[in-house]
């Protein structure tokens, strides 16, 4: 397939990246969503142009390539924003702006639950742990079954039983799920 607008659809990619960022970004990053999207897309463009200019003009750049690049770039950009935030938090002069939108009590409670989940997952039977992990990551039963290569009904049961285990474990730790 030739390299061209019909293959590298940046407009669609942009919509998809906007949607992904909206779904993935934590609350504190809300103000930076536009920057994040734009930074990611500009880097995707740079990378694809570099590839086109690096003597691979005859190699097709497929949609999957574009999304794979966008994935890697977005991981980097989220990491960079997070690190910048950490730096800001260390800087007392900037900290009031950076943390203004966060509720410290809610953040602390969420961290406690998160740590509890990690500990409970470690103690869970492997199959349930895998199913629950993908459930917590936002995957549907169908997606979880596909990724783990299990039957859908088996997967559904493992998610259900695993989540029951998780709640019980958290309660035992004094954490109300």
């Amino acid at each position, binding site marked *: 397939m030739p390299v061209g607008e019909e293959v590298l659809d940046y407009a669609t990619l942009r919509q998809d990246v906007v*949607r992904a960022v909206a779904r993935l970004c934590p609350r504190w990053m809300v103000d930076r969503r536009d920057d994040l999207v734009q930074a990611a897309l*500009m880097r995707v*463009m740079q990378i694809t142009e570099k590839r086109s200019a690096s003597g691979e003009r005859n190699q097709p750049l497929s949609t999957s390539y574009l999304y794979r690049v*966008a994935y890697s770039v977005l991981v*980097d950009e989220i990491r960079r924003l997070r690190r910048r935030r950490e730096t800001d938090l260390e800087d007392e002069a900037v900290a009031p702006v950076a943390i203004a939108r966060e509720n410290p009590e809610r953040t602390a409670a969420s961290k406690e639950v998160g740590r509890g989940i990690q500990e409970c997952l470690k103690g869970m039977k492997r199959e349930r742990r895998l199913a629950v992990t993908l459930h*917590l990551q*936002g995957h549907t039963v169908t997606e979880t079954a596909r990724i783990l290569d299990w039957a859908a009904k088996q997967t559904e049961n493992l998610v259900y039983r695993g989540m029951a285990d998780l709640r019980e474990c958290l309660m035992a730790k004094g954490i109300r799920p």
Partner: protein
Amino acid sequence: MPDGEGDTPVTERRGSDERLAEAFRALGDTHGSEVPEDLRERIWLAVSGTLPPEERRELVERTATDPGCAEAWRVASELWRASQASAVGGTAVAAAGLVTRWAPRWLAAAAALLLVTTIGVVSLLNRPPADDFRASSGFVVESLVPADMPLPREAFRLRWTPGPAGSRYQVRVTTEDLKLLATAADLTAPEFAVDPAVLAGLSSGARVFWQVDVSLANGERRTSSTFITRLE
């Protein structure tokens, strides 16, 4: 509904699940670790179903205890889903999707090899910019155009913090919908004036996005954040 469900109402359980998922995802904010390139590649292959099932399971297991890895997994999942919806004609995507369920083992291996090759190329070209905020001896590329100050068309001069002596700059300027307005390379001064002619098609108040790549004298490279400047 799975066998043996308890008495907890479904809606309550769903709300609880969402809270737990939110707390699990929030771990990435405080404990997010670096995700090396090779791990990132394997995550993409796992999410797309190209990696063998047991290797996929091993990676899922890792995401249970590694928040950075879990975050990369979520990003990969979102974009892989989107790529599936968008790539009606994308050959690589089609191959990845099909081998997951239907193709014989040798075809799956061939598709995996194709993807790994692609990803290898991506990795080489996609080396992330160095850590602008900690590892660059204090040098951070920042815009010197005040964020709240629109610039006139006839004097749309972008300026940024100068790098160490011998630095060269590359600038890229786009519209909000990524239409390329201007690029410039090998600049020796930390500024760039956009030709008013290329701004003619933009309405007053339009947002212009720009980014700077700095090549340092020692061969290192720094990429700025994306800056936004409005047109007066």
